[in-house]
């Protein structure tokens, strides 16, 4: 972990440099800030997820007793939200800066407010409210209690105390803080379209590269794929295959758990099983965007994915406690 950096003061932008943070600077600042509070910095998870919560660094780490602090920027894909790059506020893939603090420190809200100072928000000149907003994910068997943090009427963060994950009651609890990076960057830079966000500014020339320069094509093509080209029959087939493989791994874990062979239990690939579960979740989202899931199927498919998530969570908890005994 990086050596502790003295607190927010050193992180506030040089007053002479009144340029708002670029998109990448915003991420640097948040990473630096939370690293200095003892967080592991992770890279985004490299399987498609709908939210940072689904990445194993959250979903699996919140289970069991071991304390953990981690932060990572997670591209979050929601096929149905795609707008072909035409809507200035909506994206198929947005970026969440996801933070997990397990257990939550007593001064977590104060730390969070300091992080806002760290990205150049002078709270004496803004209006900040914590408004009730509880979070629930039926597909993950997870829910929590918390707030949306409103800054001048804009929701900039989702703040949740996880209570349950993968159908398992948590102890200790975990606080999850999710910053919506595009929103915050657009707010800081005062631009009306996400695509106008300055992603980076060349220090030598001052030339800028904007969000649209980098991501517009991505939004357009994936909207076309998700809404028009994705092959429904193949998506169902993929879903079936991934589900079957995931389920057989879960079944295997159950059999193994009875063996009390801790070496075997410890090396059993539940992380692989979880990747397969994530694949299923993404395929479900694609099918949904394609309008391919009928009423009766919808609830059923959600239940199938939930069964995988819950199965992996249970097996993972067992595995962790077996490994702990070793």
């Amino acid at each position: 972990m990086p050596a502790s950096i003295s607190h927010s003061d050193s992180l506030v932008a040089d007053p002479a440099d009144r340029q708002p943070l670029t998109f990448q600077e915003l991420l640097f600042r948040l990473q630096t800030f939370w690293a200095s509070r003892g967080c592991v910095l992770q890279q985004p998870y490299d399987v498609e997820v709908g939210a940072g919560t689904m990445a194993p660094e959250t979903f699996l780490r919140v289970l069991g007793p071991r304390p953990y602090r981690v932060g990572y920027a997670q591209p979050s894909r929601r096929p149905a939200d795609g707008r072909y790059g035409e809507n200035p506020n909506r994206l198929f893939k947005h970026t969440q800066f996801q933070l997990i603090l397990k257990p939550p420190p007593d001064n977590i809200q104060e730390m969070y407010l300091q992080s806002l100072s760290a990205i150049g928000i002078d709270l004496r000149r803004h209006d900040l409210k914590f408004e009730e907003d509880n979070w629930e994910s039926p597909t993950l068997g997870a829910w929590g209690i918390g707030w949306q943090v409103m800054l001048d009427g804009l929701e900039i963060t989702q703040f949740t105390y996880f209570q349950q994950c993968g159908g398992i009651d948590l102890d200790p609890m975990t606080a999850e803080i999710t910053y919506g990076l595009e929103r915050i960057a657009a707010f800081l830079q005062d631009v009306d379209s996400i695509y106008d966000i300055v992603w980076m500014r060349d220090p030598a020339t001052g030339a800028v590269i904007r969000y649209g320069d980098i991501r517009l094509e991505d939004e357009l093509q994936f909207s076309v794929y998700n809404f028009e080209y994705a092959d429904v029959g193949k998506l169902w087939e993929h879903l079936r295959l991934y589900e079957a493989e995931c389920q057989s791994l879960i079944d295997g874990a159950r059999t193994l758990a009875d063996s009390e062979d801790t070496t075997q239990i410890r090396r059993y690939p539940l992380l692989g099983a979880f990747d397969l579960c994530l694949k299923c979740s993404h395929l479900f989202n694609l099918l949904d965007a394609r309008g391919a899931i009928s009423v009766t199927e919808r609830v059923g498919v959600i239940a199938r994915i939930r069964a995988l998530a819950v199965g992996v969570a249970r097996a993972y908890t067992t595995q962790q406690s077996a490994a702990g005994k070793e």
Partner: protein
Amino acid sequence: MPDFLLEIGLEEIPARMIAAAEQDIRELVKALLGDARLLHAESSVTAYSTPRRLAVLVTGVIAKQPDAEEELIGPSWKMAWQQDAWTAAALAFARKVGVSADALRKVTTPKGEYIGATVQRKGESAATILSARLPELIAGLSWPKSMYWRAGKPERFVRPVRWLVAMLDAEVVSVDFAGQSSSSSSRGHRILHGDAPVVLPRANAYAETLQKAFVLVDSAERRHRIRKALDRVTRTIPGARWREDEELVETVVHLTEWPTVLLGGFEAEYLALPQEVLVTVMRDHQKYFAVESADGLLLPHFLTVLNTEVDAEGEAIIRHGNERVLRSRFKDAQFFWDADQKTPLAERVGMLRAVTFQKDLGSYHWKTEQNLAIAEAICKILAYRGKVFDKAALLKAVLLAKTDLTSELVKEFTELQGIVGGLYARAQGLGETIASAIYSQYMPASMEDAIPSTIEAQILGLADRIQTISSMFSIGNIPAGSRDPFALRRAGNAIVRILAESALPLKISELIAAAGQAEDRVAPFLRERLSFYLRDVKGYAYDVVAAVMAADADDVSDACARCEALQAVRTSTDFIAVAAAYKRIRNILDQARAAGIVWSSADETLLVEPEERALHAASVQLAAQVGELRAGHEYRRALERIAGLAPVVDAFFTRIMVMAPEPSLRSARLRLIESLLASISGIADFAEIVIA
């Protein structure tokens, strides 16, 4: 006498829960002090709250309970004193209450002889009692939704507790809860005051000390300030007023510790969007107050209540930020509106197959088909009874009623369902009857809300709701206790209100039959809603409602009329006499039946006494009169006629013995009172009337 302060410091409590919690903690603290004999007659108990704290200040607490003697009763004398000595049971009692055996004596009570002892109770100090009992009191506060946050999950509370203050005057009362120990140190406004502790010099300096730390702990004061500020700021726009919204005022009162009001604006071009959409965005999504002209037209301004106080530069920044958010939301709404017009409502009916109504029942397409069948059946009844309405428009409205669920605008603003459909129907030229029926299908949304104004909308509202109720009942989703996840009670209330206030000639049983429903719990459920409506909404006395519903509970508007009439006459002396006679008659008949007496072949010529002949004559006349008045729904006059019978009935029961020894005479008299009962029973079951 010292003043007592308790403050629970929390992470932000949900605004919707604060008012109830404030009242809750006030009552609990008051009860605790009262039970412990620490509350002086002149004590005042005041609760305070902000999003981050819940507090109670009690003035004039008794510092120490007076010492007291207490008489305690032990085992019976027989058990306690045997063979001239105290038994083990007696000695155990002495030990338990802390006296020596010498102090035991015989006491005689109405229940018999026991042993007793006089025990000296030393009064305890308020501080001791509060220390001991406050943790349990705090834990006992009830919250609609609570959480764990500490390892080991030792307690649940609405949000993490971050500090505790408990003081008697300047002294800290030691209280431990949720890992926090009390002190005299509170906290101020997060930003305006910062993290430095706010030390309270004494309990009753609470409000003034916190005010210096930019926290108004008195929610009433914040409410007052917010209203004043809304007025003041709105005055800067000539001729404007803010749109009154009590619920929103309450929300912002409980979202702020130091409220100020800021005026913002938006581009006038957005006023082209329907005002329902604009107000929903402002109110429900942004918690802004809408601004309107004197004649109620929306103006391109809004008011937002801040939880801070800023300089001019800060105001400009915050205004700009809020306007930016609002503009993008309006832009979205405009975008959705335009996009939705590309697929007219009529083309959306098939899309309803993809929208779930209930997973075990079917889609909204299925529901629409059901609704159509029910609406047709209702139409048949109403047409037969001569009601005039546009059936084609109604059926079209039923067909299209749910199609707005497929629109982008409703996906974004779910609270506008129905309203959006109505607006689209109007924009797509479907005509006002169809548009307004779709628009107002969810009215009344609450007991305060009006019912739909057109007959077509009323029928749509009835058909939709009875379909929901009966299909949910058919799969076992029946409300029980506080569990009513599909808001079926609200749907039932709406049905009753529409039937009561529209005066549609339609009975509850007919509505249920229109839904083709055999589930026998639907009728009692709707009757219970009718009873609720008559009692809690119309305010009729419990027994009046019971009496009216016992006579007939199928025709809602008729039940209303009968309640009104009965409520009006029930206190008159004559009516009370008749009601009493009614009960008496009922009892006599019940007993006669129980004794196996049969009077069906009674001979009325056997009635010869003047009092029974008078009652017979009056009864025959009354039956005709009451029948006629009832048919004309003149219940008040009918009941007055019935009450007019009092002297005759009175004379009858004074002079005549119904259960005469001679069987044929007894039968004739039983027959007489039975027919009297029948002639006055149709309006209400007077046996239900409670006579003081």
